[in-house]
């Protein structure tokens, strides 16, 4: 007898917020429509990106196996989930974790889904997300439902929208902060999530919050938008606010964010970012993706003009009660300890505890409490580790933890008296390693492991360097221990190499007809001051020689530094010419026959090739609001057909009518992005702007298709038979086709 197990959709029905559940249902329908060829692959690509479902290396069905290029024969090779992206190819799921905050239940759920839908690993990114790799697109709706059941969404984790909102992991316990930015990060993330004004960007937009100016904290300097907490006293009252920064970014052309507003009152930050979003959506580049980030718009306009436009936009925004309500709610934010703090005491300490305590424990401003950083190699955690971390968070702190931009896990509010017990408890998890944030604790983007754009193996190199430096860690000079290494697989800088003391990004050189993996060496970036300065590119060195580069540079710094001199100061003092000459001897590549190891990458014995690089999805597809509107209309009419097949003719009629309204609304967005969702308004505006102007009229059929909308608007509710519902569905399809044709004509106009 077959046991009925139901579905996650049924099982979690009561545990998901209704709007989120509906969004996921819609996405599931879009998946089905794409499989059936009823949704354009470009629109589907941007749709799935905005749901966090990203492409992964080899998803174009091509891979060089080290001997020859091969075609990967996936079962559904004629179906694509985006341009040149095979349907069955494993993909990546990015899961937004605003300010890196997770409760224990969420951690356990992430562990479960990493096992069931991915490869058992939850990967912490440099922007406090979790990524799962090797995920099948058809598993994503259930994966999203399970996340939604514990309050996590993947919406807008990728694509041209507001990405995960990050914040300093010390927020609330930092000794130098103005105030706790955690609840503000929550407010910004949730206010802008799915907001209509963030749907029409030419590229992504990343926001970070920081509690202070001078430490690394939120890295606001490298973000599209940054907020640094500030207070001021007015009439004897302390007011909270933020310095607002705009136009930072890494990548091939790194920019430092510029000060947009010196002080924005806390109650103004949501409308300010709404106004920024509108300016960016309206004036940002849409065609040339390489120039579409907001940093280029700020450069083009100048920060003064950008500021003027934002102020002007802010003044025209319709009032939104959430601007203040969400900020008022920040006062209710509670991040309390599990137990009273107590001093560490003088008792017996476990072996290794002292070194761990020196490097991984930060004294909170609250007496007798510590923030503990767990060093997570390459940001990878198993499901078993995740469950045990959830247990530890319940045992030692308040059942929560945070993910850091250095790909580590942070436990806050650990009573100092509990530190030895926590250290002991971390040992079976393999997470008791000292050196968090040190030279041995290396940050790396996925690189060639899974990224379509990766050129060289950032993770392979990081693994090798970490192995060597961890082995030497106890003997390293303290000034060397404090250096930071960050590695990217290409110039796009997801590993944030620009702000490391010693940074690398992957590239290649041709030697004797062979392609040799190299890394560009970038020295002297500044982590503190919110990523206050970017490093100098010194030159490309063969990948195999990078460990020697680290050893040489660290040793020269240790030997030659002046009293109190930082690594940044040292590099600037000796000058680029000297640094370059320091590396000259390491740039040579032995012949292929002499040493073949130079011709393969770290952790990958295949002969190195650039043949596997694909087209990245970082930029997403530039899909207009009208494209999305028409796609929504098509989905609705698809649902109408399904309802018709199931003899639900009333539902079919309603969906058919709604599909026409959606299509009309999509067209109206070409003229007014603020168009209401009220059908009365939509039909009225459509009549005025598209029907009475003749813009919608077909060359042969004239106003016939427009009349379908007007008729349905008047009388869809009167449909009383399957036959009339069927007719309405047919008319809806014709109306949507006419809307597509109209939009094409509009785009062709000079």
């Amino acid at each position, binding site marked *: 007898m077959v*046991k009925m197990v139901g579905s*996650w959709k049924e099982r979690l029905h009561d545990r998901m917020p209704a709007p989120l559940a509906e969004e996921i249902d819609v996405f599931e329908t879009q998946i089905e429509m794409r499989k059936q060829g009823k949704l354009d692959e470009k629109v589907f690509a941007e749709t799935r990106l905005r749901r966090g479902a990203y492409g992964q290396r080899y998803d174009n069905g091509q891979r060089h196996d*080290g001997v020859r290029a091969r075609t*990967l024969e*996936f079962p559904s090779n004629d179906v694509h989930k985006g341009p040149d992206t095979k349907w*069955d190819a494993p993909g990546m799921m990015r899961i937004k974790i605003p300010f890196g905050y997770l409760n224990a239940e969420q951690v356990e759920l992430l562990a479960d889904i990493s096992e069931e839908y991915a*490869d058992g690993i939850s990967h912490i990114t440099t922007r406090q997300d979790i990524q799962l790799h090797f995920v099948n697109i058809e598993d994503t709706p259930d994966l999203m439902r399970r996340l939604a059941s514990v309050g996590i969404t993947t919406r807008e984790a990728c694509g041209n929208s507001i990405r995960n909102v990050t914040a300093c992991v010390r927020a609330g316990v930092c000794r130098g902060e103005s105030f706790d930015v955690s609840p503000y990060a929550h407010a910004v993330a949730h206010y802008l999530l799915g907001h209509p004004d963030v749907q029409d960007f030419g590229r992504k937009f990343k926001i970070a919050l920081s509690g202070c100016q001078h430490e690394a904290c939120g890295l606001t300097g490298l973000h599209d938008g940054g907020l640094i907490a500030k207070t001021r006293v007015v009439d004897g009252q302390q007011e909270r606010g933020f310095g607002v920064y705009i136009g930072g970014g890494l990548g091939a052309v790194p920019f430092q964010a510029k000060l947009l507003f010196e002080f924005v009152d806390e109650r103004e930050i949501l409308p300010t970012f709404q106004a920024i979003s509108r300016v960016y959506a309206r004036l940002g580049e849409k065609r040339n993706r390489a120039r579409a980030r907001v940093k280029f718009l700020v450069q083009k306009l100048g920060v003064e003009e950008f500021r003027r436009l934002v102020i002007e936009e802010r003044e025209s925004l319709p009032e939104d009660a959430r601007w203040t309500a969400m900020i008022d709610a920040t006062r209710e934010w509670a991040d309390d300890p599990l137990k009273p703090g107590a001093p560490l005491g003088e008792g017996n300490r476990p072996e290794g505890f002292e070194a761990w305590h020196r490097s991984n424990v930060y004294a909170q401003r609250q007496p007798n409490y510590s923030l503990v950083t767990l060093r997570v*190699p390459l940001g990878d955690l198993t499901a078993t580790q995740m469950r045990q971390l959830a247990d530890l968070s319940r045992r030692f702190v308040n059942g929560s933890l945070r993910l850091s931009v250095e790909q580590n896990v942070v436990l806050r509010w650990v009573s100092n008296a509990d530190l030895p017990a926590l250290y002991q408890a971390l040992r079976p998890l393999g997470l008791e390693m000292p050196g968090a944030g040190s030279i041995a604790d290396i940050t790396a983007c996925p690189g060639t492991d899974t990224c379509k754009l990766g050129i060289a193996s950032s*993770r392979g190199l990081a693994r090798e360097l970490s192995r060597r430096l961890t082995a030497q860690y106890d003997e390293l000079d303290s000034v060397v221990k404090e250096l930071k290494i960050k590695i990217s697989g290409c110039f796009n800088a997801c590993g944030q190499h620009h702000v490391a003391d010693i940074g690398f990004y992957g590239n290649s050189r041709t030697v004797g007809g062979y392609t040799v993996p190299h890394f560009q060496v970038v020295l002297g970036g500044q982590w503190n001051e919110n990523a206050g300065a970017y490093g100098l590119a010194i030159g490309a060195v063969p990948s195999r020689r990078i460990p020697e580069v680290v050893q040489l540079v660290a040793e020269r710094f240790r030997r030659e530094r002046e009293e109190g001199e930082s690594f940044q100061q040292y590099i600037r003092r000796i000058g680029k010419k000297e640094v370059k000459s320091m590396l000259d001897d390491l740039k040579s590549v032995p012949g292929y026959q002499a040493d073949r190891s130079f011709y393969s990458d770290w952790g990958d014995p295949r002969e190195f090739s650039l043949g596997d690089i694909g087209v990245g999805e970082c930029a997403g597809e530039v899909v207009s609001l009208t494209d999305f509107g028409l796609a929504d209309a098509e989905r609705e009419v698809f649902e109408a057909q399904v309802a018709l097949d199931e003899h639900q003719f009333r539902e079919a009629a309603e969906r058919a009518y709604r599909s026409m309204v959606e299509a009309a609304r999509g067209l109206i967005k070409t003229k007014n992005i603020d168009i209401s969702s009220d059908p009365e308004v939509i039909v009225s505006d459509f009549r005025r702007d598209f029907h009475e102007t003749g813009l919608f009229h077909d060359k042969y059929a004239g106003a016939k298709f427009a009349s379908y909308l007007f008729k349905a608007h008047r009388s869809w509710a009167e449909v009383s038979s399957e036959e009339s519902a069927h007719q309405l569905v047919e008319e809806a399809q014709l109306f949507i086709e006419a809307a597509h044709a109209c939009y094409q004509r509009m785009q062709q106009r000079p």
Partner: protein
Amino acid sequence: MEWQKLGVKLELDGELGFPIHEFIGEFHRFIQTDRLPIMLIDVHDYSHVHQGPGILLVGDEANLSIDQTDGRVGLHVAYKRPLGGTTGQKLARVLRLAAQAARALERSRHLKPAPAFRSDRFTVVVNDRLSAPNTEETRATFEPELRAFVAEAYAGVECALEPESDPRRLFGMRVALSQRPTFDELIKSLATLQ
């Protein structure tokens, strides 16, 4: 019951005599030479992860890994795509793939000393908490089907089963047999059951 996403982990016999990353090259050779009867995609190095998937060979139908969970090294095969047939036929297919991979690794001239895997000690996992939560009810349903399969595949050899006890973990049962066939024998036996 319709079980899918079945997995098998064959235990390593003794200790590995070489660093685990040596499997990276071998798995790449698996891809280059089409060593297994499924489409293989890529190799992933998780050797830096504490008691993790070790070295992962990603396939379309199934993933294989030199898994280190709980500090016990083994060859893990995890099916991802739905399998047809009875539970016995599905288990035969999964175990056969594991046996084929184990045999290939044991015979590799690049891995020295040659690793050895146990054909008589393995864990069967159902990687789906919807259909197979780790409960007594699941055990009661699954165990008879697993016993019937083992009886056929191993021709009446005595069998002890032990369920995974942590309810948060995936449902799984460790199988211990009183006789240890060679992988050639096991593959031949399983071929008749698929």
